[in-house]
């Protein structure tokens, strides 16, 4: 079986090179700090963490994106197309037969021009390679959701809070309900606001106990002032909350979704660039033989933790719902800025799991 998987991986790796990608290597042992700062504490539950006597906490490569982006930002050509093949390691916290070590083959495009064309190139390339397996594609566009949040008529703090949790659906929903006045504030918040109406934050902090820890009285007073300001902020207008609800629930073939998107957000001038980008991507996909009339689209697709996608997203699933996606990918422009130390470049890419390809071919 291992030989069959490796042969699938090699074939995919060759296909990506034939598509113009330069092969790149990445270390297996990566500094844990970068990954933890990027993904948060959740990655610790998913990645193997080990201790190096000189280099500190290290992680067995949980994915290729971070090392490939770092290598590109350090000394990459512009534009560039990369491919890679190698093991990734994921701790499994549940009993079962999910692999904790498996091969990934990936393809990434770093290009400043025509991002929609690059999105379509990646998707069409994957769709073509996976066509014999009869997989179910799914697509989404986090750029539309983010643009919708940015276009809300509310404070920048509230927009920032929603954007920060765009990948955490439950918390996003809780914030939206609170900002829209659909959920009451916590009783403790109301008590605090009453007390802040009687006394200054500094006086309340002083009276609450000795100042301990690194979070300073200034940090506390700053947030207390923000809470007072937020309490005076009018709720999100009902039509805007309804707009976000409709957007989150949107699931239709891409061509139909485009019509629905115009109905939901078309009246908002700030949404024009995101809609134009969506239209340009559908054209680019159609030009590559992907029919927008049948391509599934969900506005919420790609909203899960450990993700960093901020535009087009896609997955290819087998019929068995218990299997992880055979392939997944998307656009991650913001990640290149985080890892680029002041520089950034639009980027899109994805990975295929050759073990699933081999298993599905064996079952055919």
């Amino acid at each position: 079986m291992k030989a069959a998987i490796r042969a699938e991986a090699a074939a995919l790796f060759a296909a990506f090179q034939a598509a113009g990608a330069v092969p790149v290597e990445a270390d297996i042992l990566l500094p844990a700090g970068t990954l933890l700062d990027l993904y948060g504490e959740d990655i610790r539950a998913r990645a193997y963490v080990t201790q190096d006597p000189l280099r500190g906490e290290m992680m067995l490569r949980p994915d290729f994106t971070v090392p490939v982006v770092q290598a590109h930002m350090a000394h990459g050509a512009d534009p560039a197309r990369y491919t890679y093949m190698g093991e990734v390691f994921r701790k499994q916290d549940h009993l079962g037969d999910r692999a904790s070590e498996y091969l990934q083959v990936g393809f990434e495009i770093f290009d400043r021009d025509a991002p929609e064309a690059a999105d379509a190139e990646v998707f069409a390339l994957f769709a073509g390679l996976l066509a014999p397996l009869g997989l179910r594609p799914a697509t989404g566009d986090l750029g539309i959701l983010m643009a919708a949040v940015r276009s809300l008529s509310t404070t920048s703090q509230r927009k920032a809070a929603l954007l920060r949790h765009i990948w955490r659906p439950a918390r996003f929903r809780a914030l939206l309900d609170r900002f829209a006045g659909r959920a009451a504030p916590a009783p403790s918040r109301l008590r605090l606001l009453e007390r802040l109406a009687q006394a200054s934050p500094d006086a309340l902090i002083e009276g609450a106990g000795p100042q301990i820890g690194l979070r300073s009285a200034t940090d506390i007073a700053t947030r207390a002032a923000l809470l007072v300001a937020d309490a005076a902020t009018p709720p999100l207008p009902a039509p805007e909350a309804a707009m976000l609800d409709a957007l989150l629930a949107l699931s239709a073939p891409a061509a139909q979704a485009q019509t629905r998107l115009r109905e939901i957000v078309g009246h908002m001038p700030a949404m024009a660039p995101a809609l134009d980008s969506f239209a340009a991507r559908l054209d680019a996909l159609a030009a590559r033989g992907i029919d927008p009339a049948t391509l599934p689209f969900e506005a919420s697709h790609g909203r899960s933790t450990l993700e960093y996608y901020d535009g087009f997203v896609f997955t290819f699933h087998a019929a068995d719902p218990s299997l992880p996606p055979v392939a997944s990918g998307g656009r991650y422009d913001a990640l290149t800025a985080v890892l680029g130390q002041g520089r950034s470049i639009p980027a899109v890419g994805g990975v295929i799991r050759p073990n699933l390809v081999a298993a599905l071919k064996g079952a055919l």
Partner: protein
Amino acid sequence: MLKIGVPSKGRLMEKTFDWFGERGVQMRQSGAEREYAGSVEGIAGVELVLLSAGEVPRELAAGRIHLGVTGSDLVRDKLADWDRQVAELAPLGFGHADLIIAVPACWIDVDTLDDLDAAAAAFRAAHGFRLRIATKYHRLVRDYLTAGGIADYQLVDSQGATEGTVKNLTAEAIADITTTGETLRANHLKVLDDALVHASQAVLFASRAAEWDEQTTRVYGDLLRLIGVAQPDHR
């Protein structure tokens, strides 16, 4: 022999002995007080294994003991997919303690998990690193915070005197076990209103991995009848 693991010292051991004693099973530490060997009377075929409460989950998972008494917090924290490795037979009604999240009392703006999340975002922006929560219950706390959608925090390991970590500047908040809250108050900390990570107590567990031959299965059935505990659907 059906092996039953019981905490080897302190109130947890005494209370476990009392609980079984009231139900007709006498457990005794044999020989000197410091000797970790014991005997069981009232039922044949049961061997007492005295060990640290913290090691009971591991021994159950490995199947080296058939039954074990320990805190529900320890089993949930130390075993991945705990309920597929062990079966919860009966809560024993003692050893109550709550795993909670606490922050400095001077944080007037933080009373809920929601507040903690917002404070963590602001803290990271102001100080350049993720807000540190000191704990020894890594799995329980991380799962809880992940489920709550909390970001921009990090767990730092603290195996004791966790309440002191904030004052010592090695953490900004803590997640720890408390019974009365006295230690928290003495260290100028307050418990978040809605952050009860786990309400723990001593529980009798059965191992799913132990070897259950005809003899141990029979003794198991006899013991459960004697102590009045229903057999779970499947072990």
